[in-house]
């Protein structure tokens, strides 16, 4: 595609938003130059000369790394230190260097060819390892290979960002990003990555938008093309019309003003217009999200997901590893409560050789509590780690995917053993830790009255509950469009759960995406919900919306909605309600 084609019409591309905000500006393609190694195959005459080149190039790369590490540590502490340390130590590895020089001597190949061959082989080896940490070292080795080859050819990677631009790249490594002048980065668009990839973390830290697109934009776009990126919807608008630019300029200004105001208000409590207190809690997966949670004055962590600890370990992390994570979490949030959900593996979160695979219906299969109760040793380790962490803060335990009372009873039996063991080992723990259950299966929701006798608190997971009530697989494109929590059957069930829990004096929280959907909040308040747990970034927006609502009108709108039969009617009514109240919050962050 050339520039001329773009100038015809604006093009909208959908990506995955990973950091909020808007950016409008020219594209800056970041692509390390690729050298055609086929050209390097030729025989060389003077191997001593090649080795001299190699040594010089390696010294140069060492200097680059020392410099990059210094900058990185100033900005991010020790977050990326391991990467720099291992790259530096590879450059000092005389046995590795000997492999390369042997190739130069014996095979009579150029330094660049030899570096490429040996380091590609090493990286190939690492990429096939099972352990995530070691597997990822493959990228450090490839990055190092690129650096040495570039140094051999005297090519400096072009990091020159001289005017504010949106950086578009296939992916970004820590060594790449520290070279950009940060005041010129408007946003990041990468072809690859995820919620935890480097570009995402960096973008969140810099408070600039980031979007991941699956369309290889880094190979399609050209420098200087104007684009708009929306770090809420994930949309990328290429070559926008003047009108679109104006619209987004306006959105951006409104967002910045709103953010400014929200952040300055962040210290205050969450209350409705008629002064009813509401708890806003955070859903958290990684410890590095905690500063964000504290900044938005969340009332605690309503959901700490533990799956990633297992996914990162490719299986079971030992008790001490888990304990350390839970301890830090509890300590940093104290005195606020931290609700730790025991592992919800299975379904779409699989670990090879650990969870089962090739199940016909994985979401109806061996997942979450079912997996845990079949693997009591794994479950016990996690419960032990949580109990040990309980003395460092205010900890609660939450069980996922409960569908029968027996599962709670069995868990309590395991907990009794855990407590006896800890007592015998003289390890401190905080007495009886509240034990709650997720309400995400129809069975649990329908049977809520009986669950009140067995569980201390509830947490409604709207994503799974909707999926199971409507019998719609969200990952199936043919049916996923009908997935909608505003379905009257789902709303009715959620309402019943909240009402019963309130009557029976059981704390109930909603921790699905639904808790931060503007059209849903008045309904949930009307149902009697007072605890919302969400992505930490959404908290200021939800807090603002809640401050504009009073309970009586929420109850009225909910009772009116209860008579509706069509999803579309409900959605329209709610949108109209917000419009009327001037509460149409458009800048909400999707999870």
């Amino acid at each position, binding site marked *: 595609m050339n520039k001329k084609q773009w100038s015809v019409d604006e093009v909208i591309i959908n990506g995955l938003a990973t950091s909020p905000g808007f950016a409008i500006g020219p594209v800056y393609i970041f692509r390390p130059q690729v050298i055609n190694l086929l050209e390097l195959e030729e025989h060389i005459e003077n191997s001593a000369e090649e080795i001299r080149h190699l040594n010089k190039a390696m010294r140069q790369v060492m200097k680059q790394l020392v410099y990059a590490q210094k900058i990185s540590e100033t900005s991010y502490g020790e977050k990326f230190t*391991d*990467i720099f*340390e*291992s790259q530096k*130590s*590879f450059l*000092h*590895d*005389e*046995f*590795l260097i000997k492999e390369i020089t042997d190739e130069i001597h014996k095979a009579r190949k150029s330094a660049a060819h030899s570096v490429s061959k040996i380091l590609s082989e*090493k990286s190939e*080896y*690492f990429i096939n*390892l*099972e*352990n995530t*940490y*070691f597997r990822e*070292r493959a990228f450090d080795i490839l990055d190092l290979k690129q650096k040495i080859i570039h140094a051999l050819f005297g090519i400096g990677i072009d990091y020159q960002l001289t005017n504010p631009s949106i950086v578009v790249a296939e992916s970004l490594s820590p060594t790449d990003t520290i070279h950009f002048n940060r005041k010129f980065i408007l946003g990041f668009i990468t072809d690859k990555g995820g919620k935890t990839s480097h570009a995402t973390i960096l973008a969140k830290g810099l408070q600039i938008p980031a979007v991941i697109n699956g369309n290889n934009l880094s190979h399609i776009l050209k420098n200087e093309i104007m684009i708009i990126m929306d770090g809420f919807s994930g949309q990328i608008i290429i070559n926008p019309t003047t009108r679109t630019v104006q619209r987004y300029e306006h959105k951006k200004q409104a967002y910045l003003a709103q953010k400014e105001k929200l952040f300055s208000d962040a210290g205050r409590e969450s209350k409705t217009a008629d002064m009813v207190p509401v708890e806003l809690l955070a859903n958290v997966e990684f410890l590095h999200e905690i500063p964000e949670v504290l900044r938005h004055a969340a009332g605690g962590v309503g959901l700490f997901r533990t799956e990633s600890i297992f996914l990162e370990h490719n299986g079971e992390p*030992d008790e*001490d*590893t888990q304990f*350390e994570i839970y301890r830090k979490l509890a300590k940093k949030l104290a005195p606020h409560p931290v609700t730790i959900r025991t592992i919800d593996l299975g379904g779409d979160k699989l670990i090879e050789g650990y969870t089962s695979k090739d199940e016909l219906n994985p979401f109806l299969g061996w997942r979450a509590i079912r997996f845990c109760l079949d693997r009591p040793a794994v479950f016990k380790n996690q419960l032990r780690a949580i109990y040990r962490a309980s003395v460092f803060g205010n900890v609660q335990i939450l069980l996922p995917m409960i569908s029968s009372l027996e599962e709670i009873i069995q868990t309590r039996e395991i907990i009794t053993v855990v407590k006896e063991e800890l007592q015998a080992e003289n390890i401190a723990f905080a007495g009886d830790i509240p034990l709650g259950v997720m309400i995400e299966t129809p069975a649990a929701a329908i049977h809520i009255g009986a669950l009140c006798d067995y569980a201390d608190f509830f947490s409604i997971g709207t994503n799974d509950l909707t999926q199971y009530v409507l019998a719609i697989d969200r990952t199936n494109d043919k049916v996923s469009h009908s997935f909608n929590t505003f379905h009257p059957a789902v709303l009715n069930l959620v309402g019943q759960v909240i009402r019963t829990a309130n009557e029976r004096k059981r704390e109930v929280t909603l921790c699905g995406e639904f808790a931060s959907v503007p059209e849903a909040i008045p309904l949930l308040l009307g149902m009697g919900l007072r605890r919302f747990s969400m992505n930490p970034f959404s908290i200021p927006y939800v807090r603002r919306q809640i401050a504009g609502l009073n309970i009586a009108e929420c109850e009225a709108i909910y009772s009116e909605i209860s008579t509706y039969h069509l999803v579309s009617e409900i959605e329209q009514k709610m949108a109209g309600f917000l419009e009327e109240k001037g509460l149409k919050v458009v800048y909400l962050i999707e999870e």
Partner: protein
Amino acid sequence: MIEKTLQIINEQGLHARPAAHLVKIAGRFKSEVKILKDGLEVNGKSIMGVMMLAAETGSYLSFVITGEDEQAAIEAIEELINKKFYE
């Protein structure tokens, strides 16, 4: 020649920093230091080699040390591993 199997017990396993530490200690001795795990044999004085072991916590490594200071070398390595790399 001394052969000894040691278990990695530090939390991380042989991640970059502990691996570098091990290489540094091995490099202080004149003896040849070989490490074996799951059929892979690497040079204990090479950081690339040690990283390639991908040794997680709990895994067992066989050390084969040959040379005049082999006894001192295995003792130093054993202490490093058992003291969890002084992390």
